[in-house]
């Protein structure tokens, strides 16, 4: 028996596909379990791993699936409020951090001034400061400033993260030509206008990626709001759902439906923007 080169190539790749598909299944199993558990009664969560067995189509008791968990989350437990809080906090943090990081990155990438190298090494030093080191004194500072239990206490420290300044600086060094800025100045454009109408549009992919990085990071941040916020009405999803576990810990169906509504929005967002997001994440490391 003989194979054409393309057939041989396909045969050689077959085991590769098998391994990749196997790894993909393992990756997806927890998601599948979560999805099934969220739509089951608590009794069925314990009775079956994925789909409840019964005499419906394909031997599955389709009629036992329920949306009652979601009804309880939003009608009785006020998760809608937590979701609004999460959306507000994440969107605000993303917009602010992107804007101010881009500003600082622009200064470091496109201007020559005494002290630039000094500021740049400050940014690099800030990159390696572990967050846990700032936890205790940061808490004391927020207490002294009267910012505990307020969104300002959560948002202000992340206004212009060094990580973002560094990413924007790298991206602008590569994509903002000095000649363009110079001709804009000759044409009499002001510095602020140059930033908004020339510089920002040039780094649009980076802006998209960074908006998403910060949105995701704020959405998933747990320890920050856990330390800073005290009023349950202001809790974002991460803190609210974890509290739910403290109150209804044995109700797996309920906890999983809360987890599902917390992760589904960011997964959907990522599906829409994944190319930009991954390019933004890896650009700092690979191009360095």
């Amino acid at each position, binding site marked *: 028996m003989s194979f054409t080169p393309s057939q041989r*190539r396909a045969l050689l*790749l077959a085991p590769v*596909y098998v*391994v*990749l598909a196997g790894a*993909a299944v393992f*990756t997806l199993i927890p998601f599948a379990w*979560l999805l099934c*558990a969220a739509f089951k009664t608590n009794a069925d969560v314990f009775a079956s*791993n994925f789909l409840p067995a019964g005499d419906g189509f394909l031997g599955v008791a389709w009629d036992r699936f329920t949306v009652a968990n979601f009804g309880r989350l939003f009608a009785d437990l006020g998760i809608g409020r937590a979701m609004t809080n999460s959306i507000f906090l994440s969107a605000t943090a993303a917009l602010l951090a992107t804007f*101010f*990081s881009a500003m*600082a990155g*622009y200064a470091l990438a496109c*201007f*020559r001034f005494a002290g630039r190298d000094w*500021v740049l090494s*400050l940014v690099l030093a*800030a990159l*390696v*400061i*572990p*967050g*846990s*080191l700032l*936890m*205790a*004194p*940061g*808490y004391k*500072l927020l207490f002294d400033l009267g910012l505990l239990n307020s969104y300002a206490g959560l948002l202000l*420290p992340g*206004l*212009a993260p060094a990580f973002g300044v560094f990413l924007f600086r790298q991206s602008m*060094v*590569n994509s*903002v030509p*000095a000649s363009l*800025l*110079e001709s804009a*100045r*000759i044409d009499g454009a002001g*510095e602020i206008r140059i930033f908004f109408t020339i510089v920002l549009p040039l780094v649009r992919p980076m802006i998209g990626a960074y908006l998403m990085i910060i949105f995701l990071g704020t959405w*998933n941040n747990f*320890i920050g709001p856990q330390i800073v916020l005290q009023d349950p009405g202001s809790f974002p999803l*991460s803190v609210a759902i*974890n509290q739910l*576990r*403290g109150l209804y810990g044995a109700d797996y169906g309920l906890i*999983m439906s*809360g*987890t599902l509504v917390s992760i589904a929005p960011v997964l959907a967002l*990522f599906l829409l923007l*994944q*190319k930009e997001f*991954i390019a933004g*994440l*890896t650009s700092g*490391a*690979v191009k360095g």
Partner: protein
Amino acid sequence: MSSPSPVAAERVSPVRAVASPSGRASSDPAPVPARGRYRAEPAWAPWVFLAPFLLTFGVFVAWPLAQSVLLAFQQTFGPRSSAWVGLENFTYMFGDPLFWTSVRNTAIFAFGSVLLQLPLSLGLAMLLNRPGIKGRAFFRLIFFAPSLVGLVFVGLLFGLMFAPRTGLVNTTIHSIFPAFDPEFPWLQVHIMPALILAALWLYTGFNMVYFLAALQNVPEELLEAASLDGAGPWHRFRHVVLPEILPVATFVVLMSLLGSLQLFELPYVLLNGGSGPENRGLTVVMYLYNTGFVSGDLGYASAIGWVLALLMGSFALGQKWFIKRQEDR
């Protein structure tokens, strides 16, 4: 970091700016020096653009950092009252059995997860990078998806999946290997292995994205030349691929290591705010959090934070030194 081109262009630019408007300069009544035609970058501009960063950095990073140095030599009772204790926090730490338990647990997690995750990430990336593979973006999407799930949600999810008897992990292993005890107490006894497994699910795809990006940057001609010279797959990997991806690879190793050393939210949620039976789930940052925010001693917490920071800093310097040594060869 190299940023040669734009800086060089900026240096040359005034010359061009002088040259281009010179024709029109003669029509001006008073001959302006050519330089005046070129409106230079105003000196205030970079500082205005930097102001928000410098301000928040000063208030929320530099100031607390300085405070944490001072706090490390104090004992505090909540944020309101404190007393100087000199080096006592540090001497106490070295005889503190809870601290050493947290160090041991954290080290087990760090090495366990780095040793398991990274070969798997690199392996998957190399498979995905095979020429002719279809659906590369699709697989990358699936592998990456877990890292989008916040640690607190991963904790909730795996907390239920690791449950004895009914949890998915135990029922699955039991159905494949009937000898496996379905009552296997993950979160009661084997907390660190459970955390390593959860982290494996969470971060393998994330690291893979970095490896894949690095592998896609390996020049095709180098691999072809090596093949023509008769290098087998192992030699091609060892002598062509590995040197090319080494900077990214060591970067990923460093990031995983530093991330692992800061392990906190995952066990905190998995163990419902506690540190597990016999403190088997106590990590360094969890201990820091407990001393600072539960016992209210921000001083001892800061001292622990500094020991951790110095450890992390030495790993970061080690990576720099290693890369530099490789490049000098």
